[in-house]
């Protein structure tokens, strides 16, 4: 029994520590499909979301305010001016490899820019766009 518990904990911590963008897309897509059966992530919807002006915040009306028009480019924080590495995994390999970090930044940036939490469907679309979109 302790051995089983240990293995279960090991598996759980490994899942929390390391991930791939594809695993995150799959997890968010599965969560979205539980809400609306048949959900399939779409890079096109992700691209629209990325480019959309939510205009909730004056200084950060859209994702592009800090991350630029192209997520494969380096960006810059709209308020502090701090350099931001590209958001797209194809340009910055460390992106979307830590599930806790991904959740943290969705939580912060969605409330700031979108004005609410993002849905699992939006997150799946978003990451899919970043892995394959332009």
């Amino acid at each position, binding site marked *: 029994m302790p051995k089983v518990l240990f293995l279960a904990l090991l598996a759980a911590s490994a899942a929390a520590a390391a991930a791939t963008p594809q695993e995150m897309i799959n997890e968010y897509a599965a969560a979205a499909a539980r809400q609306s059966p048949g959900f399939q992530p779409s890079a096109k919807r992700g691209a629209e979301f990325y480019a959309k002006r939510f205009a909730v915040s004056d200084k950060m009306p859209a994702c592009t305010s800090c991350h630029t028009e192209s997520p494969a480019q380096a960006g810059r924080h709209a*308020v502090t001016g701090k350099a931001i590495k590209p958001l797209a995994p194809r340009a910055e390999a460390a992106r979307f490899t830590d599930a806790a970090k991904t959740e943290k930044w969705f939580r912060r940036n969605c409330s700031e820019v979108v004005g609410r939490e993002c849905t699992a469907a939006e997150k799946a679309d978003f990451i899919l766009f970043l892995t394959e979109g332009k």
Partner: protein
Amino acid sequence: MRTLLIPICAAAVFALPAQADRLPIPANAPPSFAAECGGCHLPFPPALLTAPDWKQVMARLDKHYGDNASLDEKTRRELEDFLVRHAATDRRKAGAGDPPRLTESVWFRREHREVPQAVWNDARVKSAANCAACHTRAEAGSYREREIVVPGLGRHK
């Protein structure tokens, strides 16, 4: 008495510029310091604000200069303890305003008195808190004059 006083004064005079050159991040910084504080801005050297000012900053993270930078209580506490432990003891770092801004202290304003307004307004600078816009080795805690490159003006002379 006189012989003692002269070396002390000399030491004080030479100590000041050296102190401004190096503002290292203390080695015992918790990993959350770079991850949380450094997520949106340069993780500022704790020695740039006094302890009461750091406490005030950390008590109002939900209203953090126009941003909601809330943290879980464990992380918040850990960062506050770290900042307070290494806070400025120098009186010139006080008077940073309400909310406290390290760019408003007497010390900061004096150190930057030669910087023209156009530089502060430059799109590449954006904010007086964007240390790395001119201090090319700010990330490493180094602020030496010869490392300064001002957008639009070039190297510090």
